[in-house]
């Protein structure tokens, strides 16, 4: 298959199917991430990349035999590796032996929030999550550096190509508040149900991306300007690491939320809320900023193509 457009669509379908698979394995948080990131925003960003590059794959020098061989060897090695894996839901599996029992038994009294995934992600493994946020921040920085920070890529406010799509405009206008509300719900209900900063940030960004697809990049940038986005990208990481520093100053270890309030459980609640907020802010800003840069580039390219 050489049509990259179809390949991107297949990737989206694959992500959606694996999200369903995760739901049936009771990993709802992962499923939500997979549906929002894998099926949603990645597809949009991939399409943006295709608009910047080419729609069909270049013809390669070699035949299909070499890739087929690589795939078969890798697949055989992976299947061989599964022989060593414990059976599904085996209580003696290493994953259920090491720290998991402690998390499951103690997190109710230590952290006091029902969703253990959130306690592990934001509190027990807070340092790893900080690393992930920094990775997202670095990715956003990379896109900004490659595709240009400068705001001078457009000269005139060219009307959006979607101007005549009345149905789309009306439906979008009524859907965007719902999407934003849902993102806020995911963000702040992440302690109790599935969700959290990563998923909420992506969904929040999806609303803005939808708006800028339908109403044009210029009107979207009037609502949330690239400078604000760059500020928010850094602000989220700062909120996260600042929470850690605050814990340090109040007498605990880095990212040890026990000291943030008068009693440890309350401190954990405050810390997790702040940290998830930081994650959400950074993810939203990076996603919107990456999309703005991609579509700004392809707009500029279309204009130069016309002239």
């Amino acid at each position, binding site marked *: 298959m050489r049509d990259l457009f179809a390949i991107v669509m297949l990737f989206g379908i694959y992500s959606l199917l694996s999200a369903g698979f995760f739901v049936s394995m009771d990993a709802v948080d992962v499923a939500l991430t997979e549906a929002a990131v894998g099926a949603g925003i990645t597809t949009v960003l991939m399409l943006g990349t295709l608009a910047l590059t080419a729609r069909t794959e270049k013809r390669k020098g070699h035949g299909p035999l070499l890739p087929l061989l690589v795939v078969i060897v890798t697949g055989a090695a992976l299947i061989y590796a599964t022989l060593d894996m414990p059976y599904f839901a085996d209580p003696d599996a290493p994953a259920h032996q090491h720290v998991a029992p402690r998390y499951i038994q103690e997190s109710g009294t230590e952290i006091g929030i029902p969703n253990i995934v959130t306690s592990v992600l934001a509190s027990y493994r807070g340092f790893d999550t900080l690393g992930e946020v920094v990775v997202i921040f670095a990715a956003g920085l990379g896109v900004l550096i490659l595709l240009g920070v400068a705001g001078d890529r457009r000269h005139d406010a060219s009307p959006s190509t979607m101007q005549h799509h009345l*149905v*789309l405009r009306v*439906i979008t206008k009524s*859907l965007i508040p719902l999407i934003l509300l849902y993102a806020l719900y995911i963000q702040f209900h992440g302690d109790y149900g599935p969700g959290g900063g990563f998923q909420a940030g992506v969904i929040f960004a999806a609303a803005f991306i939808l708006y800028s697809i339908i109403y044009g990049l210029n009107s979207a940038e009037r609502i949330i300007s690239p400078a604000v986005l760059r500020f928010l990208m850094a602000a989220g990481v700062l909120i996260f690491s600042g929470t850690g520093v605050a814990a340090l100053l109040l007498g605990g270890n880095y990212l040890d939320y026990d000291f943030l309030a008068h009693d440890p459980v309350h401190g954990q609640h405050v810390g997790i809320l702040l940290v998830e907020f930081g994650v959400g802010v950074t993810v939203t800003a990076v996603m919107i900023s990456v999309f703005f840069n991609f579509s700004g580039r392809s707009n500029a390219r279309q204009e130069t193509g016309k002239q």
Partner: protein
Amino acid sequence: METVVNILSWAFLLAGAFLGISGAVGLFRFPEFFTRLHAASVTDSLCAALIVLGLILQSASLMLIIKLVLILLILTYTSPTAAHALAKAALHGGLKPVPDGEGEPSSKS
């Protein structure tokens, strides 16, 4: 009473499943883009609505029913819009619908 509800809900579910399968068949077998889109959007709208209705009749708690109704609302909002956008994009891209009887002869076999 319960039997009536069960029969009704299974009728909805089966009708929805039938429409889903017929939509899939149409998506593969119809000759050109717009007829295929028609088949796919039947799956989107009526099939999904019937299945959700059947599930509403099966569900016990009020909360579940409210959630299903909300899903139904979102579906009736979004899927016709998606079909509309697809059709409009295709027209915009220069794809013309082929009126009946003017299709390529190979599609008649």
